[in-house]
């Protein structure tokens, strides 16, 4: 319940911040916060008014006197969001696993495997903002704060609307509200297109999305679950009790999914290796060859590429609707 409150608080704070009077009376507040479900009629440059105080995902008040120019991103999704809204040139440090877009790879690596970041390297970069995300524990936020750094915790979104709100928040803070709003609009349109194409679909084939060869699948509450359903499928993992669930092969055989999507394709799994597994040849999906490799980053990183993931899933699950 607490987790659902946080995105609501962020969205509410955004709306309130838009209505708040500017600290300098001479600056005109030309900011217009768009409705998230309607198409936006273009307004000329939206400008963020500083100073700005926001409440982050941990309930902390963070003050911005200007758009940060030296940002360190602690999560791959944070890096993707920063580059997507056009703040890529303001990023001076990123975690080891930030590999998208390509330009992010040339930014200084500051650690991050097994949750351990190189605080010396972070401090040495003299950042004016550290962007933390859902995978960072609050102790990390606190210890970075103790080193005198400004940290903003971007809570994990639970829905696409939450993700849009995160994009606009980051756009606002970094001085790219315009690009962020445009991006959100185009993402909305693409999702609406997918919804429209799937409008006439009656069948929701059972999909088994594999996270790991053990086998593990994605359960309820994950974006994978959400996107599979949005893409017109039924997630086999929905019946699990936790978000990251090890399944029983017997249950899988009984359920007999229409297709298998390999999120672990990057770790060497493929249609061949799945067919070779003991007992898996009983599955219809294996017999029909309906095993597809998939880039897991598109559905596990809470950033704009979730829409890419949705489109690709929809094409896999309902190819007939996209001819």
């Amino acid at each position: 319940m607490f987790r659902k409150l946080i995105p609501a608080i962020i969205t509410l704070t955004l709306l309130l911040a838009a209505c708040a009077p500017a600290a300098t009376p001479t600056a005109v507040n030309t900011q217009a916060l768009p409705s998230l479900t309607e198409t936006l009629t273009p307004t000329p440059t939206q400008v963020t008014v500083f100073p700005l105080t926001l409440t982050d995902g941990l309930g902390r008040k963070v003050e911005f006197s200007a758009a940060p120019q030296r940002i360190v991103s602690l999560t791959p999704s944070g890096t993707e969001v920063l580059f997507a809204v056009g703040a890529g040139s303001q990023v001076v440090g990123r975690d080891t696993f930030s590999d998208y877009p390509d330009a992010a790879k040339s930014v200084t690596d500051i650690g991050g495997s097994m949750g351990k970041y190189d605080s010396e390297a972070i401090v040495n970069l003299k950042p004016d903002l550290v962007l933390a995300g859902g995978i960072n524990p609050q102790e990390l936020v606190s210890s970075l704060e103790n080193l005198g750094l400004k940290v903003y915790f971007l809570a994990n979104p639970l829905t696409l609307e939450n993700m849009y709100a995160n994009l606009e928040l980051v756009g606002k803070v970094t001085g790219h509200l315009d690009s962020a709003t445009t991006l959100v609009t185009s993402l909305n349109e693409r999702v609406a297109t997918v919804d429209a194409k799937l409008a006439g679909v009656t069948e929701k084939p059972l999909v088994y999305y594999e996270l790991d060869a053990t086998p593990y699948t994605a359960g309820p509450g994950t974006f994978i679950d959400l996107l599979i359903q949005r893409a017109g499928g039924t997630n086999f993992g929905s019946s699990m009790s936790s978000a990251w669930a090890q399944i029983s092969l017997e249950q899988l055989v009984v359920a007999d999914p229409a297709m298998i999507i390999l999120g672990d394709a990057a770790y060497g799994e493929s249609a061949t290796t799945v067919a070779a597994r003991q007992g898996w040849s009983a599955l219809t999906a294996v017999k029909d060859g309906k095993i597809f490799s998939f880039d897991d980053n598109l559905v596990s990183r809470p950033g704009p590429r979730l829409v890419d993931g949705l489109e690709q899933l929809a094409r896999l699950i309902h190819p007939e609707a996209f001819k």
Partner: protein
Amino acid sequence: MTKRRILPYLVNLALLLAAVTLSLAIGSVVISPSQLWQMVSGWLKGIPMPKELETFAFIISDIRLPRTVLMLLTGAALGGSGTAYQGLFRNPLADPYLIGVASGAGLGAVIAMSIHWPYSLWGMLAVPLSAFLAAMLTVLLVYSVARIGRVVPTTNLILSGVAFSAFATALTSYLIISSQGEVRRALAWLMGGSSQNNWLIILAILPYLVLGLGSLLISGHALNLLQFGDDQAQQLGLPVTRTKTVLLLAASLSTAAAVAFSGIIGFIGLIVPHVMRIWWGADYRRLLPLSMLAGGGFLILADILARTLMRPQDLPVGIVTALAGAPFFLWVLRRSKNQGYW
């Protein structure tokens, strides 16, 4: 005191100081020796730090120094309690985690992680505190199960410890598997402790370490007597059960405090006492303080490697202690002239 008697302390202290100096000078951010010298001489003379060196000075004073002190205290705790456990159980394979401190701490930490604490000082301390309390609770359970009347047989302690450890570890694994996405955080903690690194946590564990290690330091004579066996020690005038209880509690207290923030670092509690025994002999009055000094120094050196080997990756210290420590110990063992040093 004769020169021979203070030599071990001098050597260990010198090694410790060398380790501390290296730990402050080396890190993932490279500071050249000339810059270091500039900072040190400037600080000694009282002249203000030049602007371009301010960040480096901050890194040394606010990142490396607390970390060095934490590693020193943790290593001392592990070395001291390892020695105490080996003396208590009269077993060369005994280590501080024998009767369940590590598994109890892991369980406590994972339980605390499954609750979403609000962002506050309490939230920050929840995981280490829980680890500490669970560790002590496990030791107390193990002790009360192993006790027969007024006697605590050593074998019973070991067996009881093994059983509780297995149970706690299994429960921890189950909680990790069924958690809602806290797997990564739990595994990171189990391998390498908390990411917190400041003076507050050092203050938090200091009372327990002072109490625990202090009690151990004055128990050297008692441990020597215990080496003769429970019966003989009793006849020599030692209140055996009471001594064992106090030693057990003191060692477990120190280990639990160390583990709460640094995670489960193996190898030091097991091997450092042996190296000290090979070098300086098996008199527990000397062995305890020497193991504490050596444990601190060794862990600091291992931590330097953990921070710099694969920069910017921070390796879990436990991996480095075993990887670097095992060959070193084997070398010491082969070179030792004593055939039966135990």
